[in-house]
């Protein structure tokens, strides 16, 4: 069920999504909820997006545009008012998605009473994977991503960046091929963010996961993603989809290139058009 080697699919050199191939998709998803004052708030309207296996997609939008609501719906935590979410082309109920999609929240939310390794196996424990097997899987990932020396450390002894790494390993172990990252680097300083972006790309390429990253950072979206979905202010709806066909790794030379600058201009234009 959760043998991560089974979900390995090394991303092909051509990362462009093949027609019809989708790993996770939202179709005409709308969501309204009743606010504290009893008024109905429309958070999302008619959001459709489709992400291919192994793709790195970003969702960007102004704050309060319903990005986190969208992730909650994709993860199966909330039922949308309208619309459906497909996994591998099959329509699913929210309950069916629970336990199949990895979620990495903005704050690491590591349990202070567990070591880094103990936290990393949290999802596997919920799934009933025996402790020694779960720990072996986590140790394997810790070794591959340079975290081995922190296995026994408790969260309070880890830096913010290190805690986020553990949180990503936890999400990766807890789920099938899809990982949802909700502004995972939002609370970190600029240097740590840059460091973690590189690390995240390595992890993504090593694990062959499909990633949907929510961010409000234009450069972050362009440096990491294959595609960027731009959401409008509330009620959020997909206003633009921007393909980022830049070569990887996207080092400083790429960031200075005319293509990068042009993509950045298009992305900012799409964002500003709505404000």
């Amino acid at each position: 069920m959760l043998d991560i080697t089974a979900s390995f699919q090394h991303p092909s050199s051509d990362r462009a999504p093949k027609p019809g191939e989708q790993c996770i998709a939202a179709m005409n998803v709308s969501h309204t909820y009743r606010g504290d004052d009893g008024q109905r708030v429309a958070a999302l309207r008619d959001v459709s997006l489709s992400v291919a296996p192994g793709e790195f997609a970003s969702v960007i939008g102004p704050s309060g545009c319903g990005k986190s609501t969208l992730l909650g719906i994709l993860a199966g935590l909330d039922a949308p008012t309208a619309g459906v979410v497909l996994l591998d082309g099959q329509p699913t109920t929210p309950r069916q998605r629970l336990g199949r999609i990895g979620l990495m929240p903005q704050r690491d939310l590591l349990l202070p009473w567990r070591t880094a390794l103990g936290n990393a196996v949290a999802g596997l424990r919920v799934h009933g994977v025996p402790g020694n097997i779960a720990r072996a899987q986590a140790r394997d990932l810790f070794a591959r991503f340079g975290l081995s020396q922190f296995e026994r450390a408790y969260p309070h002894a880890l830096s913010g960046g290190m805690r986020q790494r553990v949180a990503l390993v936890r999400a990766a172990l807890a789920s099938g091929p899809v990982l949802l990252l909700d502004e995972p680097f939002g609370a970190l300083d600029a240097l740590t963010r840059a460091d973690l972006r590189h690390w995240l790309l390595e992890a993504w390429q090593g694990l062959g996961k499909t990633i949907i990253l929510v961010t409000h950072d234009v450069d972050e979206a362009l440096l990491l993603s294959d595609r960027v979905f731009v959401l409008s202010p509330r009620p959020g709806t997909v206003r633009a989809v921007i393909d980022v066909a830049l070569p990887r790794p996207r080092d400083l030379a790429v960031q200075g290139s005319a293509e990068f600058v042009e993509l950045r201009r298009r992305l900012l234009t799409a964002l500003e058009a709505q404000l």
Partner: protein
Amino acid sequence: MNTSITQQRIAAWWSGIPWHRAARTAGKILAPLAALGIVLGAWQIYVTSANINALILPAPSQIAQHTLADWANLQPALVVTLQETAIGFAYALAFGLGTAALLDLIPPLRAALSPLFVASQSIPIVALAPLLQLWFGTDLTAKVIVIVLVCFFPITVAGLDGLRATEPDLIRLYRSFGASLWQIFYLVRLPNALPAIFSGIRIAITYSVIGAIFAEYVGAEQGLGVYLREKQAAFRVDLVIGAIAVTAIASVALFLLVMVIERVTIPWFFAARRKVAGGEG
């Protein structure tokens, strides 16, 4: 073993001792002892210099002397009371935590019962204890019920608050793993509630000794409550105060025991708190 390595290890051990923390801990212990010493000293000076009748207010030195002289009678009473306390507190702990878990997991039950539990705290035990003695006699049952009545409330309230204090985002994360309500309860919410539960236990354990003595006071064959009642009837103020002091010492000892158990059970809580207090990282 190589001498220089041994020396290095000793040096490392020596420098590894958190002296500043040790000094703070010593201060925490010495300050209340000094305050107590001042009060007892003033008491002693007042009684001797003002020539107070020892039958009304004996001097601390006299109390200590006579209490130690009567230790052969006091000690068995203390043992009986502590046994009752231990049994009663164990029941109170089980009942308090069980109630907290049950009320937390079944919201309608919480709505129905928590006002009644609050109301139960307004019942004067003074009025209830004789009735319990009437119904259950002078055996252990009545005393255990009194102790449970006195002790369960802080444990239940602390447990309920602790269980409810879990971050909603953490619960959502575990739901995203596909965790059941029960898994969320024992993997996340219960451990998360432990610091709060220990606060409740610390309060309850100090009540428990008082509860046991009160139950004995009303009706028992042995114990500190019986001892107190007998010495009161015999106008032995010195022995009454001595027994009260012994009770206080026993309560403090139980309180410290809970703190030690707390340190061993949830070291992560204190480690994280120290870090916050130290303002690091």
